[in-house]
């Protein structure tokens, strides 16, 4: 029974760690809107606490946030921002700006920076400035960028994104770019995995899509040599 005890102890240690979004998240602007993307893995150490997590959280009608870091911290921040934006909506009686949502988030992150583990990307659409992406990394900096990637998985796809993002993409091209990029990160990053979720936001509204794990296009590194795999080899 000793080996079982050792196993139970190891599992106990594992599960007593922080629930964290070892993650791949991203958001990219295109002509007329933004696309947000994320994997769906939530881990507690090596244990996968949730394999179908939704890391794309709605803040207002047309603003979403991608969450990475501590699941608890980012959920708490998101719900505070939702609350403040709701109050703001009451007073303003007008369309809420993406930069307002980002500004509120950065206020919370910066003023509690010692206590939080949160890397966010706020993205959305407003009629004044169209599709926008705001990167909000650990310390509480707020940067407006054309596209942003975050989470542990993002380290593997900087080159891909820098090469393949172009200004003025179509909605379809941009969504394909996001799915491809998150897919590549999933293939290499142990802490990212599961499915790919995307959210497309334009003046017409919000469209969500979900790509199950077995529908994610394989990366070259996942393929075996000389046709020993059932997966199709892209020869292009």
């Amino acid at each position, binding site marked *: 029974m000793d080996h079982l005890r050792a196993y139970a102890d190891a599992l106990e240690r594992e599960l007593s760690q922080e629930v964290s979004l070892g993650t791949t998240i991203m958001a990219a602007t295109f002509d007329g809107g933004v696309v947000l993307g994320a994997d769906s893995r939530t881990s507690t150490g090596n244990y996968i606490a949730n394999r179908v997590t939704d890391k794309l959280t709605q803040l207002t009608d047309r603003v979403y946030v991608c969450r990475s870091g501590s699941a608890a911290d980012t959920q708490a921040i998101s719900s505070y921002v939702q609350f403040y934006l709701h109050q*703001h909506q009451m*007073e*303003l*009686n*007008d369309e809420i*700006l993406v*930069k*307002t949502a*980002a*500004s*509120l988030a950065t*206020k919370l992150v910066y003023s509690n920076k010692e206590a939080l583990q949160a890397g966010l990307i706020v993205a959305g659409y407003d009629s*004044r400035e169209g599709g926008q992406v705001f990167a909000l990394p650990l310390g509480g900096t707020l940067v407006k960028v054309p596209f942003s990637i975050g989470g542990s998985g993002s380290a593997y796809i900087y080159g891909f994104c820098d090469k393949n993002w172009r200004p003025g993409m179509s909605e379809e091209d941009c969504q394909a770019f996001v799915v491809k990029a998150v897919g590549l990160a999933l293939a290499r990053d142990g802490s990212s995995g599961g499915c790919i979720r995307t959210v497309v936001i334009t003046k017409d509204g919000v469209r969500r899509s979900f790509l199950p794990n077995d529908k994610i296009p394989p990366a070259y590194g996942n393929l075996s040599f000389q046709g020993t795999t059932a997966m199709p080899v892209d020869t292009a």
Partner: protein
Amino acid sequence: MSGIGTGYDLSVSTFSPDGRVFQTDYAQKAIDNSGTVVGIKCKDGVVLGVEKTIVSKMLEKGSNKRTFPVDRHAGMAVAGVIADGRQVVNRAFDEAVQYKSFYGDSIPGQVLADRVASFVHVFNLYWYARPFGTSVLLAAYDDSGPQLYVVEPSGNCHRFFGTAVGKGRQAAKTEIERLKLGEISCEQGVVEVAKILYSVHDEEKPFELEISWICDASDREFRRVPDAILEAAEQQAKASLEESDMED
């Protein structure tokens, strides 16, 4: 205004039997006796003009200002007790700064007007407070275009095409109604405001004209009208006043 002697006019925390708060009415009186302040919304912005009585011959020109910027895109003109007015202007300034730092964008005119009105209103609620003896005209220019608001001592706030407060308000409002506000620009508006303030002015006392605007000509920032434009407007106002005197 028959609250005197009844005991109902000493505190804002007691209504009179016919439903008035006399202290609030008296605060309005403080404004009704002060120099006229005129505000008009033209097609490209807002013009605020003040008839400033000169209390001493030894006053330097331009002292005791009554128009104040509150943010780049908003400003106020004060009628009534200036010391009270500055308190309101300072609060408006704080609200604008706080809004921008929290929400990351300039405060919209409507929100600023509502917040200033809430601040002013609170002074009508407690026995240890007195209402502000001042009405403020608020000019703002945001995404939804130029706007003009008036906040009264009661905490009431209204949005206007054009309005006037102070001693000459009745005559001034009649003149404003005659203007085609939807057609004239602020450059013309400055002249009209000067004409109105000259025409309603009681000739006995000397006065100084103070005009500020927020329009395309001021880069949509609240500023005092440049001296050259102000002087030209005053010349025209004086000329048209003499013209109408000849007719009399």
